[in-house]
């Protein structure tokens, strides 16, 4: 006999949302750090760096995120370390986000007219200074909208952590559904909770695109 879906179950699901938020923040912070390195490597003057980063992006963009999570989870166990699902999910999501953010930001960096970099060279700035003081600040402006858009992707991606056994929002829904069997209600609530996290970001990203004219139509 199934239990009846009660207020406690609703509270349980609502509270599990915090793990989705936390995992998203970790994935974004780590992914942004690593992604910046990947983007810089992608536009580096050294061929070997460009090649290594291009290969990294290619590998992660052409294999399923779920497989990446499995490989991290089981791969770390092989080395003899015990890894809890949160750490495995976080590591997998960071590696994945780094590839996508790296590719997005490479586009933003390359969208800055080369004259900017050449001007920096002409006044004697080092390549490091040209990147940090001239190119990146301008690239940042056009990077904001697609980055916010990708944040939505990250939040949705965290749902896969449920498959390797981390109890975030989706898994809390599964657990509740197994006990009460009200799938339409429960997964409806879960979907709604994702929607209220993602939709404002999607909306904001679209507004930013229009304001900055980076949708290819403006200015």
């Amino acid at each position, binding site marked *: 006999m199934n239990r009846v879906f009660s207020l406690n179950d609703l509270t349980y699901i609502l509270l599990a949302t915090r793990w989705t938020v936390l995992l998203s923040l970790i994935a974004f912070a780590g992914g942004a750090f690593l992604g910046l390195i990947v983007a810089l490597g992608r536009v580096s003057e050294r061929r070997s760096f460009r090649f290594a980063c291009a290969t990294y992006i290619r590998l992660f963009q052409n294999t*399923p995120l*779920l497989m990446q999570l499995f*490989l991290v989870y*089981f791969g770390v166990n092989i080395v003899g370390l015990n890894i809890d699902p949160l750490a495995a999910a976080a590591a997998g999501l960071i590696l994945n986000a780094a590839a996508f953010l790296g590719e997005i930001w490479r586009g933003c960096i390359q969208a800055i007219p080369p004259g900017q970099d050449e001007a920096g060279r002409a006044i004697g700035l080092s390549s490091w200074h040209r990147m940090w003081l001239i190119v990146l600040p301008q690239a940042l402006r056009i990077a904001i909208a697609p980055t916010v858009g990708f944040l939505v992707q990250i939040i949705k991606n965290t749902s896969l952590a*449920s498959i390797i056994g981390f109890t975030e929002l989706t898994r809390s829904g599964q657990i509740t559904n197994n006990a009460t069997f009200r*799938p339409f209600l429960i*997964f*409806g609530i879960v979907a709604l909770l994702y*929607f209220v996290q993602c939709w404002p970001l999607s909306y904001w990203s679209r507004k930013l695109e229009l304001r900055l004219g980076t949708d290819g139509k403006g200015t």
Partner: protein
Amino acid sequence: MTYVFQFGDVWRSIDELLWGGLLTIELSLGGLLFGLALAVLSAYARMTWPRVATPVVGAYVEAIRNTPLLVQVFLIFFGLPALGVRLSADQAALFALSVNFGAYATEILRSGLESVPAGQVEAGLALGLKRWQVFVKVEMFQAMRVVFPALSSQFILLLLGSSIVSAIAAREMTAAANDVQSRTFRSFEVYLVVTAFYFVIATVFSTMLEAVDRLVFRRQDRPREVS
């Protein structure tokens, strides 16, 4: 501790993995086909009955694009039977992938259709084409030309995303891998091989789609480049 890789068990189950790979491709192509049909219908509906269709299509696109595919799969597989619609895991997977891809394709197609100048439609009507003929032959063709690369990368995402339906035990490649790993306990090896398969399939499809793009949609560019 040093770990000894053993791929023997994986090679013995290679048939199972390859059959799973076939279903992965079938599910992806099915999702592409039905999803595109949904997108074209949405675009046509928005053109014909804008007052009703625009908010409905908008709600569909936003609802799908702002929730995870995994939750959509659960809603369809576990939720629909509660409403009296019974689907097998494979059918539910195809349904979920189609509805999901349809939303992204609708959005991509919208941007493409908006890029077709109004003068093109007027010219088509002036030549005596019916409204739907203008839609198909003038608007859709030119829009497809613009959005084909975006649709291609969305298709690759669909192909890779289809691994998610293993969560309801549809019999595609990831589910086959799960089976093999639960029998042989060679988890890392199995998933490594299957990841390589995904990589190959994704690379083959994106290469093919690029060739189609060049052959079908970019051919007209050439004379212009010469002159």
